[in-house]
């Protein structure tokens, strides 16, 4: 699980992984996908749209509830994962790899400093428990 160690995490349970020097993959964490349960729809904006750090960019609808997706970084969407939109179960099966949602060209790399590393995210999850 080396990739998870390279990822950045938001407190809305999204992850960011560097693809190249200025493009990233964005997805949701296993914790988030487990909590959603059976995912029915994933709604994403089209490539070419801008996203803003910590602002909503899409929705995930599961059998039980709707959850908003918040972008962990600002930038321009270069690609969306069509196969996860077509087959949402990919997200549940592989949230960190095949289940990525969008790729974004970063506007400001320093925004990554506003996110957590794996260790901090794990303690964040721990602190959320009763």
């Amino acid at each position, binding site marked *: 699980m080396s990739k998870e160690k390279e990822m950045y995490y938001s407190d809305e349970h999204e992850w960011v992984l560097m693809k190249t020097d200025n493009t990233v993959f964005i997805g949701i964490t296993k914790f988030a996908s487990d909590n959603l*349960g*059976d995912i*029915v*729809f994933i709604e994403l904006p089209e490539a070419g749209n801008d996203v803003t750090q910590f602002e909503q960019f899409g*929705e995930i*609808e599961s*059998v*039980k509830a*709707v959850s908003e997706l918040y972008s962990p970084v600002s930038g321009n969407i270069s690609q969306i994962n069509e196969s996860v939109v077509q087959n949402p179960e990919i997200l549940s099966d592989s949230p960190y790899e095949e289940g990525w949602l969008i790729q974004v060209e970063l506007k400001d790399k320093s925004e990554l400093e506003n996110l957590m590393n794996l260790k901090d995210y794990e303690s964040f999850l721990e602190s959320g428990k009763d």
Partner: protein
Amino acid sequence: MTTNKKTSLFQKHVDENARIVDFGGWDMPVQYEGILKEVNHVRSKAGMFDVSHMGRVNITGKDSESFLNRVLSFNTKKLKPGRIKYGVICNKNGGIIDDCVTLRKNETDFLIIPNASNTDLVLNWFNQILVSDKYQTSIDTLKWTNIQIENITATTAMIAIQGPESENKLSNILQTDLSKIKYFGSIKIKFQNQELIICRTGYTGEDGFEVITPVDFATSLWDLLKKSGVHPCGLGSRDILRLEAGLLLHGNDMNSNTNPFEVGLGKFLDLSRLNYVACDSLKNIKLNELTKILVGFEMEDKGIPRHGYKIKHKNEIIGEVTSGGVSPTLDKIIGIGYISKEFSSLETKIVIEIRNKNLSAKITKIPFYTRRKNV
């Protein structure tokens, strides 16, 4: 902070890693391995649900039949011992306090199963009637002298076993031939020195049983069922199963402001009984004057209709969704809701407003799903 109530099977659910949610003041499992998987399991094999949170109230004594005849929507005199009947409990205005099944154990003893969050309301309503009737001395039949109402919810547990394999699995476990119990029938048996009430009822649209057991025996029975291959299921799948089968959920699809006609439960009313508390007001409801009516619909666009979403026709708001969800059995997205009667005919195109988007749907018949009955 108030603590939620827990059933005697709660620790089982936790040990088996079920996801626990609050349901009407109870900590209940919403899912084990996944809601859709559990739906499929019940439709194709057998699943079990802890439904101990539902109320269990004994009504006993010589006057119980005539008292229940005053508060239940059907004629209790026609209910034979060992038989079960579904009905509604209405207030004096005809509003639905609860919907529930009633089991007639013998000549004098009945058991009613109110919804978890309505059990106290039903008990209060019964007591209110008992007290107020005392002063109506002009009506002879309303002097209740021999009736006991006992809430046995805490001392018993209830497990629902649902699905085509239920009869076989449960018969084997209990070493009792359950094939002789008819739909909406029941028997009482002794098993491992425990008295069990076995009802051929359910809330899934499948064949199945609901077993009432002494509270101490619940985990043993759960373990036996699990060992025989009956899958534990949560309330999430139960909600989808009941929606597919067109079964209503009180609190969602009806409440004390809706009358039985609006929800299509008119067939469960016997208004020939003058002593029935809601008789007058329900008789005054003219069917052709109903403004809203409960209908089923299926989505044509992608989106899940949820409780409270608006139903529109073109741009006009004509109603509201009361329940909706994914139906894995039909591979459709389905819902039910109230709409103005003029738009209620089958195949009518309607619009569901889902988070500011207008998504199209059409009126369909309920139930959405009917099981194939064995010959």
